[in-house]
């Protein structure tokens, strides 16, 4: 079907048009945005570790995941066995114990963290058994309206909000963490 | 204020005591009430079944009979809702739709009753009929965000000795739905059984609500299942002692 045909039919069949509403909304704000983010992260099944920005991140990763053998990251300073910028194929990131990625914006209302794609293979965000997300405390906002006003894509052209580990309740409504993607998510809140 | 009293077909034929209670209560409260003769039906059953056009002659008749009153009061939320929201679509220049009030609304919002004479020392479970909740605003629908209120409960609490309860699923449909009860009898029965069990679980002796059609449905099931619970329309309890 040619789009011109479609557009002509749509225009002919539209009998009434409506304006956009006034987009002002008094959206939920929290008395303590950071505490709300922490609370929602925990209830989504995620974990929180609070660190100084100049703290020893590698030690913190080892403490959070002592059994991890294979770590993947392209973040400078992170001791990694694999680099999502340098692997030949995305598949090569399989069996990564811990993927370490950077979040840009945190959202208190639902523990979402915006993660723009800043690596060649975004698979690291999903194929890793466990995820560590680095997030600056100061970049947490109250709600999705504020978040969407801030987010930017990078040149790679992909971004995602992640809130806690991958989950499903498809079998008899029993909640299971770790469906197809990360089985656990630890947010390193940096100040 | 001249009030016209409309007594729906099924109340006339099956639950006349509800009409009597409504008439007596309004009279007691000093309302100038008239019951125009030769009333039949508001037209809802045919319209809900899909034949709105068959309601039209009844709509026209209702308009003619009641147009000169200030208010029309009806002891039925489903009829009141049908008249308020559907009549203007069926009849242009309809005037009655704005004057029609269910009796609970009328007592609560127009007369603003703050005292009632009667005693009803029993435990009752309130059946919040769908038309009352979601069309007339007798109570805050549990689906919506906002302050909680219930006009039926407010009025019942004016009756001395009463204990008012609500079932756990306080505004889930009982499953009557007019022709729904005969077109989908198995689903309707199951919905009614579940609702009845929910009311019985409150420990109530009576189930009460603002619409006899819901009560008729629940009562029919209760009788078939030999469940020992009684039924009264809200206005019968409010008119206790009169």
């Amino acid at each position, binding site marked *: 079907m040619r789009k011109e045909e479609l557009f002509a039919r749509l225009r002919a069949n539209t009998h009434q048009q409506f304006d956009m509403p006034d987009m002002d909304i008094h959206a939920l704000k929290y008395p303590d945005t950071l505490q709300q983010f922490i609370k929602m992260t925990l209830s989504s099944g995620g974990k929180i570790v609070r660190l100084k920005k100049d703290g020893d991140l590698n030690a913190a990763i080892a403490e959070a995941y002592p059994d991890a053998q294979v770590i993947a990251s392209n973040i400078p300073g992170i001791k990694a066995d694999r680099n999502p910028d340098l692997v030949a194929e995305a598949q090569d990131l399989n069996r990564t114990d811990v993927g370490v990625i950077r979040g840009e914006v945190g959202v208190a209302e639902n523990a979402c963290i915006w993660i723009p794609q800043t690596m060649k293979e975004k698979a690291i965000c999903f194929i890793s058994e466990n995820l560590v997300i680095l997030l600056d405390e100061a970049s947490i906002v109250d709600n999705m309206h504020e978040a969407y006003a801030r987010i930017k894509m990078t040149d790679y*052209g992909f971004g995602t909000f992640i809130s806690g580990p991958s989950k499903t309740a498809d079998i008899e409504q029993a909640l299971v963490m770790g469906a197809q993607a990360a089985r656990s998510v630890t947010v390193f809140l940096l100040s | 204020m001249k009030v016209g009293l409309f007594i729906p077909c099924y109340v006339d034929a099956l639950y006349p005591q509800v009409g009597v209670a409504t008439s007596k209560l309004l009279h007691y409260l000093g309302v100038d009430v008239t019951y125009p003769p030769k009333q039949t039906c508001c037209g809802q059953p045919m319209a809900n079944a899909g034949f709105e056009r068959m309601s039209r002659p009844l709509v026209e008749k209702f308009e003619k009979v009641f147009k000169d009153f200030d208010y029309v009061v009806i002891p039925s939320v489903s009829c009141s809702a049908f008249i308020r929201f559907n009549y203007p679509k069926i009849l242009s220049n309809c005037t009655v739709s704005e004057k029609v009030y269910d009796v609970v609304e009328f007592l609560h919002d127009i007369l603003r009753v703050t005292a009632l004479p009667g005693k009803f020392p029993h435990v009752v479970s309130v059946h919040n009929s769908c038309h009352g909740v979601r069309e007339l605003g007798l109570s805050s*629908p549990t689906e919506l965000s906002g302050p909680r209120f219930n006009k039926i409960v407010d009025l019942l609490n004016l009756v001395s000795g009463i204990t008012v309860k609500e079932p756990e699923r306080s505004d889930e*449909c009982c499953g009557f739905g007019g022709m729904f009860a005969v077109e989908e009898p198995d689903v309707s029965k199951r919905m009614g059984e579940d609702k009845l069990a929910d009311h019985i679980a409150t420990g109530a002796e009576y189930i009460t609500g603002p619409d006899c059609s819901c009560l008729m449905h629940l009562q029919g099931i209760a009788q078939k299942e030999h469940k020992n619970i009684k039924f009264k329309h809200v206005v019968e309890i409010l008119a206790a002692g009169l």
Partner: protein
Amino acid sequence: MSTLHAKKAREFLKEPAKITHHDQTFWGMRMARDKMVSQIPEWEELREKASAIKRHTISHLSDYLEEFSSNLKKNGVHVLWAKDAEEFNQMVLKILTDHQVKKIVKSKSMLTEECGMNDFLMSKGIDVVETDLGERILQLMHLKPAHIVVPAIHITRQQVAHTFEADGISPEKGNDDPTYLTRCARNSLRSEFLEAGAGMTGCNFGVAKTGDVVVCTNEGNADMATSMPKLHIAAMGLEKVIPDYESLAFFQRLLCRSATGQPTTTYTSHFRKPRPGGEMYVILVDNGRSDFIANPDHWETLKCIRCGACMNTCPVYRRSMGYSYSFFIPGPIGIDLGMLKDPKANSGNISACSLCLSCDDVCPVHVNPGSQIYLWRQQLEHFGTANSEKKLMSWGMSWVYRNYSIYNMALKVAPLLNYVPKSIIGNPKMNPWCVGHLMPEFVRKPFHVLEKDLEKEYEKKSKIEP
């Protein structure tokens, strides 16, 4: 006088415990939704504005589709327009064969269900692997979804275990623990993600201003399906386009809370460009939508964001289950969409509604699915699918009510019914009221007779009390 839905529901209701479980499961989801709503004071405002944004967008649909497709192209995404299900399926097949793809992994898409894509591709020798756990279970069991968000809710853990054992996904015979079974599925699907030549997703929202295809999942399967295979095909209904990120915030906040009572899906992914070294296609599908827009009473059905809240709250859906409906989407929105798509085939669902309007109150975008069912009922005559017995009953009632002398006579005679043996009047086959009820009693003195005595009483009283 039995409709298709009523007949099927009767069969399911023969297993009351199963219905209890189904009803309680979905009531639980409704309660989870209510809990979310109580935490968002601006909830009703969100609904109002989301509804208004959709009305604006749909009534300017060609403009937004133009903007969307133009941005997609700028981002290096191929854009195709499919007139109907057949064209869509053929387009997908061509893309896959041109790229020599033998296996495609897909995340959930009701649109692909609408088009019957899986069966079509399988018949052409392409392996289609569902990766949403519920959809995967149903695929292996050769069953259709029973709900649009939790499609396998009616399947027991024992059935899942049995299926996984039979397909070599579960090595431990008899182990039906959901966590264990989910791990088995994870391992099995991991190989599929690694091997597949293409990944297909649906699209929850298409952002016109940026060209983003937004996909929301809890499992992360849409992201897994598009992170290894180099080819991504996104299937999108025309009506899924929204103006911009500012609008998106409203829908993102409403969607998951309405659907499952979670504050968000785990993943809200924005696909803007193809992967480095990869290709991305977006196929925009009409399949009747450009005609639905012309329907003055029902065009707002296109606002639907497929959250499923209406079916979760619907007391009829909860007690009759998804397979009672003739359309691939059940519940209130399914009744409406089915009537838009094929009124003659789907008129048998119209009885599945008590007009309680709970669905109108939960719909995040004010589609008013219940109110629309009332309107569809008025049109059954026009489609030739009105039930003739119901029509006769309605006409009969109307005739009695229009003629007072007949009404009056009927009430005088009605008490005789009280004496008709229960074996006749209580026979459910003769009298469907008696499937569940005993007959009410017709009174000797209806209100309009008693009223005369009341008037006398009032007059007497007013003479005594001046």
